[in-house]
């Protein structure tokens, strides 16, 4: 499944793009959380029954019953409230719950998305394993539509564009990946020393798409993933296409491409400021008023 992103509207009026968590990521985080909460429950029960044995008090047993309820319903609630929408499992996978409207994640939304979990997880399991426990003395055929419906609910994250489970739909939330940021080298920087020069007409051949492709090529050359021969092929192609005269594309393809990239970006960004956006070379060809 490809990466999907969601755009939230920040209070500043700017759209903020966040990458959605994938279904496997969410499933793993959930399984981890189930394991953690069960461990917590086991520790709690051991301590509780020890205390009950020592004090021989029924009140301690009552507290155990209460504690089980609190752990069962409160685990997600506590962590998502206290740690900005991330439970321990989500934290390990760098996931986070955010409100779909871009506002702060409220207690009501956290309650809503977690109350729905019984419907999504527990009920389908109960219906599959022991249907009579869920539908009681209702007619047996009722189990079929019930199972179908609950399976549909369980599969919602796979079916919806934003991978929202029923709890997310009801709470108005999405689960996103906490973004990582890394600023790559600017390929147009530090090329001042070249003596190469291009005319406006030469720079007017390509558009933004070709510019970005060229940036990627230069970046992979930087990383050692493309060598001089690769660059030479591209450099001579471009030189032929724009009618560049000289031996630089053959001799120093890297320098040539860098200079061309820098100058072309300067030109395209200048156009951008003037409100002219040129997507790619085809748009160039069709652009009215261009003198060839």
């Amino acid at each position: 499944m490809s990466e999907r992103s969601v755009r939230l509207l920040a209070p500043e009026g700017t759209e903020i793009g966040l990458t959605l968590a994938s279904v496997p990521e969410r499933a793993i985080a959930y399984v981890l959380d189930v394991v953690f909460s069960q461990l917590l429950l086991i520790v709690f029960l051991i301590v509780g029954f020890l205390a009950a044995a020592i004090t021989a008090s029924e009140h301690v047993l009552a507290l155990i019953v209460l504690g089980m309820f609190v752990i069962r319903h409160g685990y997600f609630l506590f962590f998502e409230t206290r740690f900005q929408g991330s439970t321990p499992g989500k934290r390990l996978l760098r996931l986070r719950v955010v409100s779909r409207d871009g506002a702060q994640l409220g207690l009501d939304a956290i309650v809503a998305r977690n109350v729905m979990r019984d419907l999504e997880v527990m009920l389908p399991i109960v219906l599959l394993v022991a249907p009579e426990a869920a539908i009681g003395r209702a007619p047996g055929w009722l189990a079929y539509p019930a199972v179908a419906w609950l399976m549909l609910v369980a599969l919602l994250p796979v079916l919806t564009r934003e991978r929202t489970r029923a709890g997310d739909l009801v709470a108005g939330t999405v689960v996103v990946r906490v973004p990582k940021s890394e600023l790559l080298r600017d390929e147009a920087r530090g090329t001042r020393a070249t003596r190469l020069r291009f005319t406006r007409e030469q720079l007017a051949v390509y558009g933004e798409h070709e510019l970005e492709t060229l940036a990627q090529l230069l970046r992979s050359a930087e990383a050692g993933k493309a060598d001089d021969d690769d660059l030479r092929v591209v450099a001579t192609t471009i030189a032929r296409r724009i009618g560049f005269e000289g031996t630089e594309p053959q001799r120093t393809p890297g320098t040539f491409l860098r200079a061309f990239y820098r100058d072309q970006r300067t030109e395209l960004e200048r156009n951008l400021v003037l409100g002219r956006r040129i997507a790619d070379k085809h748009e160039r060809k069709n652009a009215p008023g261009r003198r060839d």
Partner: protein
Amino acid sequence: MTDRVSDPMRVEPRSVRFRAEREAEWSELEQMLDRALSSGLRGLSEDELHRLPMLYRSAVSSLNVARKTALDRALVNYLESLVGRAYLAVYTSRRPERGPLRRFFFERFPAAVRSMSRELALSTTIFLLGLLVAYAMVRVDAEWYFAFVDPGLASGRSPGASTEFLREGLYAPQHDGLSIFATSLFSHNAGIGLLAFALGFAAGVPTALLVFTNGLMLGGFLALYDERGLLIPLLGWLLPHGVPEIGAILLCGGAGLALGRSVLAPGARSVRDALVDAGRRGAVVAAGSVVLFLIAGFVEGVFRQVVTHDLLRFALALFNAAWLSAWIVLGGRALVRRRS
């Protein structure tokens, strides 16, 4: 081939200068966010906490400029993720307001209940309908009793039992295991209440059924005890905890029906918006109901077992009804008025 520096083409792309001017600020923000990720916002100094929103806003404006004027995809991508991280830190990590729980239960809960009064009336109607149907049917033929009341829950209270046995069940004081009894009742009932809300997602139908069957069960009980002339004692036994408990069931049912209505008839809004609205309000109602279940469990498990006088029981029932309605009718109103 001459190197003419004055050539306009020799100027660097705007985005290069743009980046050079702002890069220091971005990396300052980035480092701050790195630390906030590992140790929370507490890892930041007072000074940095003030600087964070400022740096965030400046990064937002950088992103806006870059989206419009820069053709360096790497730069735009970087700013997108930086702003995303900063946004999460600034807008989702704010320290909780003071007394959020108090506000939740004393303002938002009653307000949410009032906002779904129609659904609450509907769930009450469905409940009463179940009650009347079961009552009438059991009065006609006692055999129907088992169709409505789970034998496991009835624990011997059936048409076959003697009137004396039934009366004893209402008054026999119990002292053992009361607190366990009370907490088990609470967690069982609260679980069902939460489920009644969640089931509203299936267009409200299962919620309505759940409320209806609860009404059937109560109707069966009422018919059985009424037949033996024990209606008043039963009500005295039932109402002290029944007021918060049945109230909570009706509230959860109403919240579930509101959820179902948002699926079936979202009105002018999209289903998604309607669902979120009903879901969030319903969650507030369901969470408040859990507190009601807790109170009901306490009354049922402890108070009522100790107090066996009918009059005192009715007094408690009345008292419970009074604070519950005051809570829902008045809760949060004074504050809303003060604000406006």
